[in-house]
């Protein structure tokens, strides 16, 4: 068992190492145009499912954290150093998640979903109000010399970090607790698990990651606008990609992000006027034919093959 894990770790490290070499390929612009969004959604979807996977709480707050991160960077760029700003984004995102988590994670199911959807809008209006009354238009422009490749490497680093944390959590008491909560919250509480604290901790983690992603992506947009930074579409994309991949495995969302992004690219390139229409059709196909996600289908197939061999 120990040896198997070691092999797995080496393999994962190898894959990450190979992926990190991607920007070194000459004339890679087309590749990078695809790789950056994939890396971004991979971090967002994986960190999202750290919390939402085991607990089944569908959070639509990703855009709220992402926007907070983007604005942290835009507003602080002239005052603080870049690494410090990433740390601040993580703290602010995590802090916001803590605040929201403590007040709403006692809610269940649909109430939580609705609240998180409203959260991005609430924060968008707060940021706008603040800009309107105190800063004018300052803090909207992000002038840096950060290249596309550097953004990609940062996202890849974040992804590695999410995987590492996710793996550690799964092995820890925290991971065990959250799985019990996901199966039956009442049982968890009766077994002496502090359910509220456990949920909030994981929610903080996913919030912090989304905020850092927002901060890392901001230089790419040069100009940060509230309606773009807090776009609800981002939250929905993350949920759809994660569900498409499957959230019961750490590597599940990845299986959703990659094909989704590639299909999206194909549609946008070949039917530029009808992207939304084709996307809707793609959603329907996913819901009807692979409701348990790509990871679920894969595992089913593997299971069948094993059974056949065994039988």
């Amino acid at each position, binding site marked *: 068992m120990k040896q198997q894990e070691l092999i797995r770790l080496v393999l994962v490290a190898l894959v990450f190492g190979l992926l990190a070499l991607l920007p070194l390929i000459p004339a890679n612009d087309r590749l990078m*145009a695809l790789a950056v969004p994939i890396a971004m959604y991979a971090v967002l979807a994986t960190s999202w499912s750290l919390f939402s996977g085991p607990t089944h709480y569908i959070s639509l707050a990703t855009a709220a954290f992402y926007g907070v991160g983007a604005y942290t960077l835009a507003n602080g760029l002239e005052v603080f150093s870049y690494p410090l700003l990433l740390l601040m984004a993580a703290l602010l995102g995590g802090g916001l998640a803590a605040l929201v988590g403590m007040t709403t994670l006692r809610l269940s199911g649909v109430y939580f979903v609705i609240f998180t959807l409203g959260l991005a809008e609430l924060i968008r209006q707060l940021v706008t109000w603040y*800009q*309107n*009354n105190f800063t004018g*238009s300052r803090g909207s422009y992000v002038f840096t010399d950060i290249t596309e490749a550097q953004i990609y490497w940062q996202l890849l680093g974040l992804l590695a970090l999410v995987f590492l944390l996710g793996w550690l959590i799964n092995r820890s008491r925290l991971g065990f607790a959250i799985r019990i909560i996901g199966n039956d919250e009442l049982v968890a509480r009766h077994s002496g698990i502090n359910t509220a604290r456990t949920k909030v901790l994981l929610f903080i983690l996913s919030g912090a990651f989304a905020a850092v992603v927002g901060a890392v992506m901001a230089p790419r*947009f040069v100009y940060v606008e509230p*309606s773009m930074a807090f*776009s609800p579409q981002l939250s929905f994309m993350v949920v759809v990609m994660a569900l498409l991949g499957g959230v019961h495995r750490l590597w599940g969302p990845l299986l959703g992000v990659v094909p989704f992004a590639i299909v999206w690219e194909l549609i*946008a390139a070949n039917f530029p006027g009808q992207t939304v229409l084709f996307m809707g059709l793609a959603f329907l196909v996913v819901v009807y034919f692979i409701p348990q996600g790509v990871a679920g289908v894969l595992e089913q197939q593997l299971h069948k093959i094993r059974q056949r061999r065994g039988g």
Partner: protein
Amino acid sequence: MKRWLMIKKLLPLALAGSMTFLSAAQAAEPILIGAAASKTGPMAGGAAVTYWPNVKLWEHEVNARGGLQMADGSKRPIRIIEYDDRTDPAETIRAVQRLATNDRADFILAPYSTGLALAAAPIFDRYGYPMVNVSTITDQTDTLSARYERIFFTLGKTSVLAAGVVDALVQLREAGEIGNRVALVNVADAFGIELAQAARPALQEKGFEIVFNRSYPLGTQDLTPVMRGAAAARPDAFVAFSYPPDTFALTELAQVENLDVKVFYTAVGTPFPSYKGRFGDAINGVMGVGGVNADSDAFQAYQKRHQEVTGQAPDFWASAVQYASFQVLEQAIEGVGGVDRAAVTDYIKNNTFQTVMGEWRFENQQIRSYWTVGQWQDGEFKGIASEGNLPGAVAPTIKNGWK
């Protein structure tokens, strides 16, 4: 045998024919022009008035006269490749990247709206494409011009647009038409915030009293409280730095509440033909952002062609500037006689252009003459104030009720 002879005779002829056909086809190989702007999402409405019809008109006009004149004497038509950015900056970036690397577009038209265009600016720069912006209105044009050597701006700066409004008010006050009381309203989005931020101190400096000052979030459905509050403050002038949906809503409410002001100003959307279509003669005397020289032959000819080719009228502000920006590209390509992007960029920097907006010359990569304030007078939206003294400005008048 006879047939064979015939073939033998005709074969060289046919070959020669196909050769000339081939070379003609080669000469006529189109210049690829990329266009990535909104067809869906919040910016789609504005782009459908100002951006897309002009793209269509430009393609039509250039190809109708056989294409662009190249240095070797041939003419090349243009072909537009369109992408919808869904009002998402990430999508704008990808569309422009796709145009540069996949479609290998010879030139790319700047996207529509400040946020989307600026998101694409680094990509234009990296791939060496000149970027002639129109609807990118910001106070950062100098910073951006210093940063990107291929970026150009044509429609003005926010602070200058705000100063234009203040000047129009000063003019009317000096004529003894209005008093000192101003109600200032703005949409809490980048454009509205920047304009209000610039207008507030400028108004105070000129001795105006801001009796009502309120902002509202983008997408506010009911502006009645804003309008009632403004009316209760009994202003002489009502100034709203608004976006199209709120421009229409505020104008509607002003009539419902019978807002009694001598100056009524709303920003983006006011110069749209649909604004007049909606309110008819009631808007006579309404001021708005932008304007045109409605009496100039160039504009009138442009207006007529726009209507004929696209089936809709241009707006009275950015439409003509949008078309002028395409004319700059067109004349620069013909001036260079080819599609060398570096040469075309240099040509844009160092030459004068004849456009529907008159003579244009870029100064520090920016056009310094543009309309700042216009007014609906006798069914036409006419420029009343401009930066750089554009010809054709008319004197501002006061608004006489809503009937």
